């Protein structure tokens, strides 16, 4: 099984004035192709910090992270941006759509950054929007979509570039139960049907229940990693 994201001895220390607050204390972790994994733990356990480091959104204080074989250390901001664009799809806690773009434009935006031709990107955007159940709502701006629909657009956007992995940070936190269930089921289906690798930081027991691999963190350390090695075939 190929390693999509690898962490070796990853540490992160935040400085608040003269005080050092360790958020991660030497994390070793591999996410492999086809994983549908959750990263859970109490607030302050370091799961969001680990997700941000894996996604190249922040830099570790120590340790090494690789994404699809590329070491993040030493990459400048532009190369990190390119890597995020090419390799990683993000789904954030808040819906995080560009408010002045319609659903399809939000999805196409990423594809345009990649230089995809108009016809190809439009077809791909419609395809992924249909996959997340938003066919017919392509022209709606985020303000005219429900929270659940906005989060589906975010998932569609994350999938549009066929990334190596989708990193999701508390994707159900702002959804009601029904929408949360739908979103979890959607992501699980996408994982099963297409082999898309998911790593989801969450408190939500329903999300954790759907995952095949459950990683738990406490005080910046991984304290449990269940289901490792049992991903859907990629």
């Amino acid at each position, binding site marked *: 099984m190929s390693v999509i994201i690898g962490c070796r001895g990853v540490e992160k220390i935040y400085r608040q004035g003269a005080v050092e607050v360790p958020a991660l204390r030497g994390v070793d972790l591999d996410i492999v192709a086809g994983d549908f994994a959750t990263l859970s733990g109490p607030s302050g356990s370091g799961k969001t910090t680990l997700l941000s480091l894996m996604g190249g*959104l922040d830099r570790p204080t120590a340790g090494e992270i690789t994404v699809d074989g590329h070491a993040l250390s030493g990459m400048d901001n532009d190369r990190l941006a390119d890597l995020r664009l090419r*390799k990683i799809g993000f789904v*954030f806690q808040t819906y995080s759509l*560009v408010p002045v773009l319609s659903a399809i434009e939000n999805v196409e935006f*990423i594809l345009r950054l990649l*230089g995809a031709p108009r016809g190809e990107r439009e077809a791909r955007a419609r395809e992924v929007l249909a996959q997340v159940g938003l066919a017919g709502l392509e022209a709606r701006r985020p303000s005219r979509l429900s929270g659940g629909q906005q989060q589906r657009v975010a998932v569609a956007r994350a999938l549009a570039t066929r990334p190596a992995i989708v990193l999701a*940070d508390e994707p159900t936190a702002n959804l009601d139960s029904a929408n949360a269930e739908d979103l979890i089921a959607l992501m699980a289906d996408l994982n099963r049907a297409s082999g898309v690798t998911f790593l989801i930081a969450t408190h939500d027991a329903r999300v954790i229940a759907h995952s095949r691999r459950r990683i738990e963190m406490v005080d910046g350390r991984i304290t449990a990693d269940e289901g490792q090695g049992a991903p859907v075939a990629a």
Partner: protein
Amino acid sequence: MSPERGHPARRPAAGGPGLRPVAAISLLGPIAWRNLWRNPRRTGITLAVVAIGVWSILTFDVMLKAWAVNSRQEALRLLTGEGQIHAAGYLDDPGVGHRTPAPAGDLLAVLDGPMVSAWAPRVRVPAIIRSEYRTRPVTLLGVSPTAEHAVSDLPSQILAGRYLVSPADSGVVIGADLAVRLKTRLGKRVIVMAQGADGRLAERGFVIVGLFGNTRGAQDEFVFTGLRPAQAMLGVGGDLSETSLDVAPKVKPDVAVAALRRAAPGLDVQPWTALSPLAYTMETISGAYIGVWLAVVFVLMAIGIVNTQLMAVFERTREFGLLQALGLRPGMIVLLVMLESTLLIGLGVVAGVVLMVATLAPFAGGIDMSAFAAAAELAGGGGRLYPVLAPVDAVTLSLIVWVLGVAATLWPARTAARAAPVVALNTL
């Protein structure tokens, strides 16, 4: 969906993730445009700041230039012309002793040539005018009326009676105000006295045939009669005190003056810039005033623009972080904010120019300055101002404001680009 990772349209990362500048602008331009209208009130305020700033700069430019043109016209079309020829020393001692022969030879050839559009010979000496009741110091001018019409507006400013009809006309034309001061009137006789060529007092009686208007100073100072009666009275034969001239269109006064100096090396040939320094100063400093005003307005405008753009950027920190998290390079964030500024300031500039054109429309016939006649006269102006917005000025000043305004937003743009992508994970 293909499980293969990586979109088939992906391009090499060199110079950005597959985007050339034109493609980047076409991607971000519509977003920038829509972003402008996310906060219509703030956009409206910024637009108003830019529009009023541009309007005020253009207003200042138009009014100063109108004033400078008016001032120049008032000065040059009174008697000065665009150049004058005198005997050496006349300008320091403008008496009958400093005179020139009538133009002839090379000088006449240049005066009648293509560089000079019109010229007028004059006798011009200090004199005393006396009525039955009063005596006033004046300047006596003996003129050739037809030639004078071509270089001066005074012949057309007759309020009563007539102007002189020929160089031999022995009537006298005086200012209407001077007539009041002398307690005389049209048709009455006055005595004019001046030093003659022989050093003795020369005097002659003239009948007032016309009264002219113009500024109070001109009305009090100038008294006109025919060239020949003046020459005869002073005993100067066919000699002149000065020759006033206008330069042909598209010929620079300095070029014509240089040609005249070569043609008459013994004479004192001066351009209007030396003869009427107030008008020249008005014209030259107007450019400096415009520059200063441009700087003042721009600084105020820039503070407003930068302030509002910074506010907008700080409000959107998470959005910029999100865009970076999705793969937008920091340079693209700078481009996005700069595009927003370019559109915003561009709209403001266009609105300012439109406002200026609308402001000028009611004044197409000029602005009557008679209510400010005394002040206008002191500053060398008067009559009517004709404010005209020169397209080249509108374009140049607008471009300066536009470019500098956009440059001022580099700071907010760079601030936006520094938004860490990790803030996309923050919920607040």
